[in-house]
């Protein structure tokens, strides 16, 4: 506690630190909210300038950008179905339908509070047990456990947004198949890059890099939404969403308390594990909220719990991502790799000794992340009361701006115009998938979980000598795997018994 107070005094007692803190907070939020640029863009732009800063301020600045950036992307996800960053993609699943129902204020309010709560819990856990958690997580979670975790996530993702279980499964399968385009994770063999169909040859160098999920997310959510609304305008059936300013009540938060706790834990452990991070944490947390919720039928249609799950988990991952970085010198994602770069620029080496040799740096960072998460509530509350008014602008005027943002977002990713094509084709496909009861969210879940899942599966198979018994002898992997199998079996039995018959018939 003394160290934390010391860190706070150092942070707020120095005008330069204080200025950098607010710069990181506001900059992170803005960059997180604009598709096409993100906190990594800001980080990349600022990285060279860290040479002239002292290491305490430089690391603090990047950690604040990380916290604020992960929250920022929720606003556009909720208002326009455009996730500002990949980790906000699951927020679209329920955030945007809430906006359509006139509950935008409630959705943004939930994102604000849950981002702050997830982030704060994560920072507190980080401050109290960095060493223990880092050691345990790295030892206990190998590729078999990661594969089992993803399998469990996939097992429940069939229920997201689709009209029937089967349509959900088929949507996830499409995502899994799309994830195999590119090169295989073991031998680097090119897959689906070239071939022949009905005598016509096709070949694409671009496809060897795989289909990136950002253009697909922008297409499935932003473009297909613009197409849907445009068709509604053409048919005269469009209803303008009301700009709701209502904040979620304490009773509503109390109802989702278990989801918040579960999502904090999932996000936290996803953040600790290198290579998993906030994006997968948010997706897994969403699928688990769906698995355990009493209102699972409302998921994908504007369920507050969906926003809570996604936003709590992605911010909970931020604090956790600092644990392997500081304690073991292992960066788990791009932004933590930049922080690693800062350490190297200043001739420092993160690892267990950093807590002894540079305790001031560690505690300024911890304090800054704590206060940044707390400040999200204040700035987020202001945003809730202001940005929702954008919804009062006629959609006919907003649509061009949304599409231009999406185009820039897709193109700026790799400076490839093919990504813009992929986005628009995904948008058209998404429109037809949605109108026939399939789930765009399921496709995205399959795509994101599939790529990591195959890699983890291949490593596990080699590691465990292709033996399912070896796999089941690992307690965490076995538990998650069995839970996944049970989820699939029970959902199929329910479907066969006709429990979901009304839903299927409405489809």
């Amino acid at each position, binding site marked *: 506690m003394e160290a934390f107070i010391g860190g706070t005094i150092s942070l707020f007692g120095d005008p330069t630190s204080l200025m950098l803190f607010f710069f990181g907070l506001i900059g992170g939020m803005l960059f997180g909210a604009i598709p096409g640029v993100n906190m990594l863009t800001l980080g990349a732009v600022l990285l060279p300038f860290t040479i002239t800063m002292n290491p305490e301020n430089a690391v603090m600045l990047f950690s604040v950008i990380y916290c604020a950036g992960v929250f920022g992307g929720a606003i556009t996800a909720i208002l326009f179905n455009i996730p500002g960053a990949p980790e906000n993609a699951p927020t679209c699943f329920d955030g945007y339908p809430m906006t359509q129902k006139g509950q935008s204020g409630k959705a943004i309010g939930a994102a604000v509070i849950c981002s702050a709560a997830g982030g704060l819990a994560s920072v507190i856990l980080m401050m109290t047990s960095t060493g223990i958690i880092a050691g345990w997580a790295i030892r206990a979670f190998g590729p078999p456990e990661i594969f089992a975790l993803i399998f469990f996530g996939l097992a429940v993702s069939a229920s997201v947004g689709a009209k029937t279980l089967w349509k959900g499964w088929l949507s996830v399968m499409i995502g899994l198949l799309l994830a195999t385009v590119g090169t295989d994770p073991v031998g680097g063999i090119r897959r689906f890059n070239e071939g022949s169909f009905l005598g016509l040859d096709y070949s694409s160098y671009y496809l060897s890099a795989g289909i990136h999920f950002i253009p697909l997310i922008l297409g499935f959510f932003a473009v297909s939404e613009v197409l849907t609304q445009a068709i509604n305008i053409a048919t005269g059936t469009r209803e303008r969403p009301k700009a709701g300013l209502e904040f979620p009540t304490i009773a509503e938060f109390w109802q989702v308390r278990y989801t918040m706790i579960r999502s904090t834990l999932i996000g936290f452990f996803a953040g600790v594990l290198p290579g998993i991070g906030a994006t997968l944490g948010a997706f897994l947390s969403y699928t688990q909220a769906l698995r355990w919720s009493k209102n699972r039928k409302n998921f994908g249609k504007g369920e507050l719990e969906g926003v809570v799950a996604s936003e709590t988990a992605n911010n909970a991952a931020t604090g956790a991502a600092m644990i392997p970085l500081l304690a073991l010198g292992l960066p788990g994602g791009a932004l933590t790799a930049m922080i690693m770069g800062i350490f190297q620029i200043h001739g420092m080496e993160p690892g267990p000794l950093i807590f002894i040799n540079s305790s001031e740096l560690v505690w300024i960072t911890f304090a800054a992340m704590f206060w940044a998460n707390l400040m999200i509530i204040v700035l987020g509350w202001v945003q809730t009361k202001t940005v929702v008014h954008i919804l009062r602008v006629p959609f006919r005027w907003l649509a*061009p701006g949304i599409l231009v943002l999406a185009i820039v977002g897709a193109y700026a990713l790799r400076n490839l115009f093919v990504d813009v094509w992929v986005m628009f084709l995904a948008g058209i496909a998404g429109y037809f998938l949605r109108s026939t009861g399939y789930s765009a969210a399921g496709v995205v879940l399959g795509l994101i979980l599939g790529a990591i899942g195959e890699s983890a599966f291949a490593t596990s198979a080699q590691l465990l000598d292709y033996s399912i018994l070896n796999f089941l002898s690992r307690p965490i992997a076995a538990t998650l795997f069995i839970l996944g199998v049970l989820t699939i079996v029970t959902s199929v039995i329910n479907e066969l018994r006709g429990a979901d018959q009304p839903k299927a018939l409405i489809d």
Partner: protein
Amino acid sequence: MARSTEFDVTTSSGPSPYLRPALEWAVWVGFALLAYSQTGLFDREIPEYRFGATGWPRAVCLLMIAGATGQFLMRCLTIARGVVETDAAEEAPRQKLSGREIAQRTAIFLLPLVYLYAVPYLGFYLMTPLFMLALMLILEVRSPGPLIGVPLTVSVIFLLVFTRLFYVGMPVGNLPGFYDVNNAIIGFARLGM
């Protein structure tokens, strides 16, 4: 789980109720088989990895066939119980679309494709305001104020934020004249830098 009473058990007077599920099954299975057949093109062994490059995608294709078959059987079972599937769209009274409405719907889908085709030749900076203008016209905006104001405002914000501040370079086209105009717009946006 309590059963809903929100749906009606109806009888069909149109084509066989099995037709649509069968068609949907055929589309999915056809797609999965096509993808499976394409895996043969990269069916090479990988040292120390038994499943090779094709193991995972082939498993996904087979699962897709299983899912499509499950869906088909389930829907057949539902129909056999005497309940006919109806789409919300099918239940709504069908209105005959006028030529203008068909053209409007087609334009909504075609406009982005035309834009995508044109941008590499004519450049993003020149084509995007025109694309926005065309989109608003398709969306039945007829007032000159928004028709000029919205593309202008979005373009200016884009140039200020992405071109001037973040140096995001969009395609400038490759046709003579258009290339120069696009570069001139970029030059104007970065004036004084």
